[in-house]
């Protein structure tokens, strides 16, 4: 049965392997009226859900005035142009929700070289 569902899956787009804690730059296609442009969202992955076509990940960044902004992307969406992994981090859990309660120095993650 599950093999049959696989037939509906979008093709692998060759994105790099993502991990929680990664600093990423996500290039998303945005439609404004009838114009299309690519926007970059830069932040840390705090959640990753792998589930075929429904796979998604949440990126958190601190915008101006120290306001946290989180954005969830559908990994298989054709609107995602490119994902760049800038840095891996040493994290000990799969969901980094604790980052929401941290700011400044305590919101740093230790880098992990791969």
């Amino acid at each position, binding site marked *: 049965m599950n093999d049959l569902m696989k037939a509906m899956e979008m093709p692998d787009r060759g994105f790099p392997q993502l991990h929680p804690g990664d600093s990423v730059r996500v290039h998303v296609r945005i439609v404004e009226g009838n114009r299309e442009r690519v926007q970059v969202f830069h932040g840390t992955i705090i959640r990753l859900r792998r589930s075929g076509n429904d796979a998604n990940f949440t990126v958190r960044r601190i915008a101006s005035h120290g306001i946290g902004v989180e954005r969830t992307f559908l990994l298989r969406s*054709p609107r995602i142009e490119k994902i760049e992994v800038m840095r891996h981090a040493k994290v000990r859990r799969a969901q980094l929700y604790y980052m929401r309660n941290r700011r400044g120095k305590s919101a740093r993650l230790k880098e992990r070289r791969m």
Partner: protein
Amino acid sequence: MKGIIGKKVGMTQIFDDDGQVIPVTVIQAGPCYVTQIRTEEKDGYTAVQLGFEELPAKRNGDSRLTKPKRGHLNRNGMDLPDLRYLREFRVRNATDLDVEEGQMVTADVFETGDRVDVVGTSKGRGYAGTVKRHGFNRQPKTHGQSDRERAPGSIGATSTPGRVFKGTRMAGRMGNDRVTIQNLEVVVVDVDKHLLAVRGSVPGAKGGILLIKPTVKRRRG
């Protein structure tokens, strides 16, 4: 005649050309065989009987079907494989008959963009109360109430009429009914894998048998 028997595989989501998400139900549709054609003269109505899901033979090579069923599939030298399900699709005019007995029917009877009705058997809910079965409101949890949260309330007046009216909505068996969802859009047709995907949900559990036929709804023009 357009119609096919299928099996619910499950739900997922796919993306359209704009990157919009479409929720879809994946259906394993066919391959089916035309096992019999019902005619006005012989049967009093016109319909096409389709058979679905080939059964593997027993280890000693015998058929898994009873002899009468096997004989039905062997009529007029058709020699069809063992089929688990037989279902009929009514045809309005005998002139619309465009299939022959023994012919194979595959998912390509539909194309993307077609509107279909899907018939299935809804999930059984067992003996369900009025809140679940008829959407009654719950009663207060507080203000001196006890044990009355999901009770149906009054089911009628007192000595006039002195009985409960027929058809009063009460608790009882729910689900496991034949349900038709009308006007679903066909999003994907994969003939090689015998798959259809329709937009939205479809009655029944995964693995449930579905009848897919052209919609009776008229397109707004």
